[in-house]
């Protein structure tokens, strides 16, 4: 694994974020020769054409870049850049076609995309959000985008929180807000619905780290039939370990992509399930935001 040559002291040493992001982008790109960016730790040489679980190569593509207002109110309007490909295989993924395929969308032109982002900021967008798929697998490109944005841009890292320690070191101090999606409250559901082992261990490590190094907002999408097995353990863990953290409980499950493979995911979340999920949030005194 590559050792970072850049320390995380740029804020105290007067280095601009853009400069640090540029340096780290180079290191992150070099690290693709032994890719350890996500918790799968495939170790493949993406620079030489090898592919790991995410199937991503050395260059990033994007399938959406536009101003959106559907995220947390305190973050919107945001210029959201959605990179193709993901390290998870969530069968209900609402952007599954693009998230499961890193070749989807268009080749990322960092100069053009940042030009559009800056234009959006000038026109009234409050933040720039980098998401996916999962942006962690395209960390070099994400950092290159940051290196071209003004230092005072409020940056959002929207992630599945399944990144590695190495990825977090590259990201330290770069993004103002981590918007982390905590999907499964137990590893059995994570394995069955997203083909990911030891999910909770990795996600919880990421959330602890993100809370210490930036502002953290945790999201959870209530899935039909999973309020008790997934949401309740998550709510309980958040209450115990990250008390007061901002939580956005999303209730409009959309039976997208391959959700029909799982009988309980064929429909939407019922009103009673939504109310039950809210009751759980109240029971654990979570700090819910919209």
């Amino acid at each position, binding site marked *: 694994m590559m050792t970072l040559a850049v320390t995380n002291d740029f804020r105290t040493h007067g280095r601009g974020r853009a400069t640090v992001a540029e340096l780290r982008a180079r290191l992150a790109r070099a690290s693709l020769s032994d890719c350890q960016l996500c918790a799968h730790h495939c170790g493949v040489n993406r620079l030489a054409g090898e592919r790991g679980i995410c199937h991503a190569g050395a260059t990033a593509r994007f399938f*959406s870049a*536009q*101003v*959106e*207002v*559907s995220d947390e*109110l305190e973050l*919107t*309007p945001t210029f*959201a850049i959605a990179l193709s490909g993901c390290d998870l295989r969530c069968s209900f993924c*609402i952007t599954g076609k693009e998230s499961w395929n890193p070749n989807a969308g*268009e080749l990322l*032109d960092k100069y*053009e995309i940042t030009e559009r982002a800056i234009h959006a900021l000038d*026109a*009234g*967008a409050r933040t720039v959000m980098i998401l996916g798929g999962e942006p962690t697998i395209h960390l070099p490109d994400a950092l290159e985008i940051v290196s071209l944005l003004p230092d005072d841009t409020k940056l959002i890292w929207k992630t599945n929180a399944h990144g590695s320690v190495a990825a977090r070191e590259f990201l330290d101090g770069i993004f103002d807000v981590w918007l982390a999606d905590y999907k499964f409250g137990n590893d059995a559901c994570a394995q069955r619905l997203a083909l990911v082992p030891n999910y909770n261990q990795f996600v919880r490590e990421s959330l602890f780290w993100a809370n210490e190094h930036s502002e953290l907002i945790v999201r959870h*999408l209530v899935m039909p039939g999973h309020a008790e097995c997934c949401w309740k353990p998550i709510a309980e863990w958040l209450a115990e370990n990250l008390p007061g953290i901002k939580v956005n*409980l*999303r*209730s*409009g*499950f*959309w039976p997208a992509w391959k959700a029909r493979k799982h009988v309980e995911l064929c429909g*939407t979340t019922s*009103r009673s399930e*939504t109310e039950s999920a809210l009751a759980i949030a109240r029971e654990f005194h979570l700090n819910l935001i*919209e």
Partner: protein
Amino acid sequence: MKPTQKQFEEGELLILADGKILAHNITREMAAVLSELDPENELMRQRATQFRPQACGLITADVRRTSPEMAGHRAHVAGAQSIALRVFKSRTERSNAPRSGDMDRRTDEDLVAADVRRRTDWKHLSQNPPPHVGGYRYQTGPKNK
């Protein structure tokens, strides 16, 4: 900007048979439309007016003109993977709905959910609409001899 790039913003709506609407990747214009459907929803109103409200107003006006059966209906945002929105159908609730001019109003039974299937196969192209609007070369009269 490269000519191959999308020149427009995209959001997605899923309209269920029971009138429930799910929305994903909500743009400011879509928020304006959803806010129009649910004028009492403060969250959606905030989303609609956060960014360039004058642009949203134009879009809303277009919707009123082109989709009179939708404009003015009261709806209720119920939360979503992005945002879910429920269009109420009861007469009581509809009677409270804000009116917009002399637009014709269809009966509740006439409300038809949008065809949200992705039009990737020939049967669903705009040139080949589904049977309920006369597509698939469906003939109701006697066949030509």
